[in-house]
């Protein structure tokens, strides 16, 4: 539900036709002899916003990375639509969009160019990519910053550019790592609204967060601790304040 009433800015998107679950089967990851994730089996469903919470180092970002196909699990696999997410080169499939904790923006490009570049990678023409990039930046209330070089932006603005870039490609799987960490309350709720809108379109939305408000707003809550699932009701990270 929008608190800012800016749904009118949301670009029109086609709903996702072939909906499929994102599944993690017995996933473990060992890094330098330490198990970062241990035998996790999870299913993320389309149309659902799932929160991943837990203390720092619990494996949230790693879980998102394996789910998005940018990290290869030591055992098990992540799959979507019958295909493994790990494609062998560490690059995500085009159906996946990330909002990274460190944004992953290209500093020398403008906010508009950073968004448009993701669209161009998916075959959108340059003029249409620029147009849609502007729409996405508008969606996150930074349309006036389109021409600014991202390294001139504040942390919060950069975070919203990262969101715009991920949302612009109409992903089937949207994986967001702390997407609200640098946002004020108003923008945080707006981003949550947009995550819900994407889920409403049929996308799988998974958000790793420490923010109890984000956890609270999620449809489904998963809590991790030391690489293992923790029952939500047993955890202080499950959204209860």
């Amino acid at each position, binding site marked *: 539900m929008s608190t800012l009433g800016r749904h009118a800015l949301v670009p029109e998107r086609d709903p996702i036709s072939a909906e499929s679950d994102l599944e993690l089967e017995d996933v473990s990851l060992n890094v330098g002899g330490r198990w970062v994730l241990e035998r996790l089996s999870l299913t993320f469903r389309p149309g659902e916003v799932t929160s991943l919470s837990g203390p720092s180092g619990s494996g949230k970002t790693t879980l998102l990375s394996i789910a998005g196909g940018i990290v290869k699990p030591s055992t098990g696999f992540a799959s979507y639509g019958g295909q493994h997410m790990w494609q062998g*080169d560490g*690059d995500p499939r085009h159906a996946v*969009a990330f909002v990274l904790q460190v944004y992953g*923006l290209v500093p020398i490009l403008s906010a508009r160019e950073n968004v448009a570049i993701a669209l161009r990678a998916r075959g959108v023409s*340059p003029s249409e990519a620029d147009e849609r990039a502007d729409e996405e930046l508008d969606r996150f209330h930074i349309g006036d910053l389109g021409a600014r070089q991202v390294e001139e932006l504040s942390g919060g603005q950069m975070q919203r550019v990262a969101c715009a870039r991920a949302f612009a490609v109409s992903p089937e799987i949207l994986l967001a790592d702390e997407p609200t960490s640098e946002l004020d309350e108003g923008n945080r709720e707006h981003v949550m609204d947009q995550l819900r809108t994407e889920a409403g379109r049929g996308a799988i939305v998974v958000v790793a967060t420490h923010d109890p408000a984000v956890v609270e707003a999620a449809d489904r809550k998963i809590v991790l601790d030391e690489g293992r699932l923790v029952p939500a009701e047993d955890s202080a990270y499950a959204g209860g304040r």
Partner: protein
Amino acid sequence: MLLRSIRAHLLPNLATLTLALVVSAGAVGVVGASRVGQTPGAVAAMLALYGAVALAEQSARSVIDRSHDVALARLRGMHGARLVLFAAGPLIAISLTGIAVGSAIGTWLAGRISDGWGIAYSVGTREVVVAVAVLVGAWCTIVLVSAAVIRRPLVDALSVHPRRHPASWLTTFLELLVVAAACLAVYQAHRSEQSWVAAVAPALVALAAGQLVMWALAWTPRLGSRLGLALASRRLRRDPDPASVVRILVAAAILLAVTLTGGRTAADWRDDAGHLRAGGPLVLPFSDGALRAYAATQDADPQGKWLMAAVAIDDLDPARRRVYVDATRWDAVVGDFLGGTSVAGASRHMRTLADQGGPPMMRADSIQVDVSSIADAGTGRVVVNYLSDQGYAQATRLRIDRPGKVTGALNACVVGCALLSIELSGDPFEVSSVRAGDAHLLGTTSYAGGPTSHARTVDSGTAAAAMLATQELGSASVLDGIDGKTHAVQVIGSVGAVPFVGRSGSLLDLGQVLRGAVGTVAAARSVVVARADTPADVLARLAKEGAGKPTTYAAVADQLEETPSARADSLALLIAVGVGLVALAHLLAWLGAQLGRRRAEVAGLRAAGIAPRAVRRAYVVEAGLLAGIVLVTATIAAAATTVPLLEPIRLVGGWAQAPAPDLAVHPATLASVVVGVAVLTAVLCALVFTRFGRAARPAALRSVDQ
């Protein structure tokens, strides 16, 4: 802590060390060698200035790389001199090491160069002053940049996403200062006699041209919609680093073009001047004058394959500076030797000069007169006037009182002498011939008695002598002859220079001028020019006929190679090597810094969905664009500045009358410099930009600490 800090930023520190080493080695080496070689030491300023800018830029980059460490030290409470030392210490130590080692290498270089010149070398105060100046310059830069880093807001210095700062007022001021100084240096170099201004101007102009290119690149528009061009154009517009590298590379190309063009021009000049001054591969003096030399060539080399007589009159007045050569032998003897020199154009006129004919030569010890008739009791007289092979006018008088052969002695005509005239006097008589050895001097001639009859007179004739002249003498109509008498001349062609006398003078046929000439002016230098492959027996015969000790072209060329300007030329090449190394070190240091930055960028691009192959392709395009910019701007800048920068530099010396050096942009030299720099840029950039692997996967961006 110092070593740990150096190790933590090894690549930029190594680059700083290399730059400090190259700059100090080059500057100290050149100054030391120029001191003992008596060449202008200011040429070292070219490398020192250029290197100082590259070193300052690299030092600044190294200190800025440590801004995070410095910020953490500030948080720990470090302040004042201790903080400055913490920030600047590693680079101060590195620059000290680099400059100390570089100075030692420079001293060794100066010693080796001096050895090559055959001059003893010992370290002088100039070298120490230069080394200290480089050190002080480097330290001042490091301290200034460190102070700027220390003043940086903590929040900025500690940010995960550090922002670029616009250039400080000091940087902008220094950049403007370089441009203004370059303009002033060019102006002053063209109107002042002080050589140091001309020596410093190339470095200033090169840096200023690079600076202008750098400023222009800040206005790069977005090029194309493809990733490579878009990334490259955005980076050039928004990141000062690549533009500053382009600045250094363009400056290097200009300096290399200037030094190499200067070196080639001077080498060409020495080659030209050496050939002109020597006059031939072997030159043998003939103290007995022009005719002796002329006659000796005819005697020792009757077919005209190896020897050519010549007389040079090197007057102070260029209008009287003249050289006479045996034009009939020019092509065979010196055609190849002087081909490609300033006098090469003379060859096509030699036939015309040779067609004027030479003096009737005699080589005999007696003259025979065949008297066909004379009245009984009549007495006639035949007087044969000739120029002896010792350069004096002589006469043989024969008394005729009956028909038949009459013989008279011919003095000093063993090598060869020239007929001047035959006079008949006394009672009427008729001669059927007058001969001297093989030379037929007079045919059937009747003398009717009365006044003396000049049966044959040899002179240069009434027609103007054909002459080749350098351009400023093209309108000459009279010229002193070999004997000092004025003769009419007609300029039939122009030459760039004249052998033996240099850039101003005239070139005439020796045979033509010897006709009827008696005596040779004191200033005349009579020689025989011999081909390098002249048989020993021919040379031996020439020596027997009065030739002095030969001078070789190699000896003349060696003299020119031992002049201070030739030494300066070799030092300029050392400067060129130094400039090339500085540019390479600077480029590599920048590329080293790019490795880390590009990995993060590649990870971001891949996270956005761009395939690694597309990123690689984009970076190759970017490398190509950078190289293209270097190629185009360096070509334009070098072509426009090379000649104006070389003009005021005293490139050559050792022969005041030599033709002026041909100052022009050598397309091959310019092309090899700019293409070399551009290709190196393209290859190194493409190699480094596309060298991303696992570290550039999107997973690398998972979190801050990873």
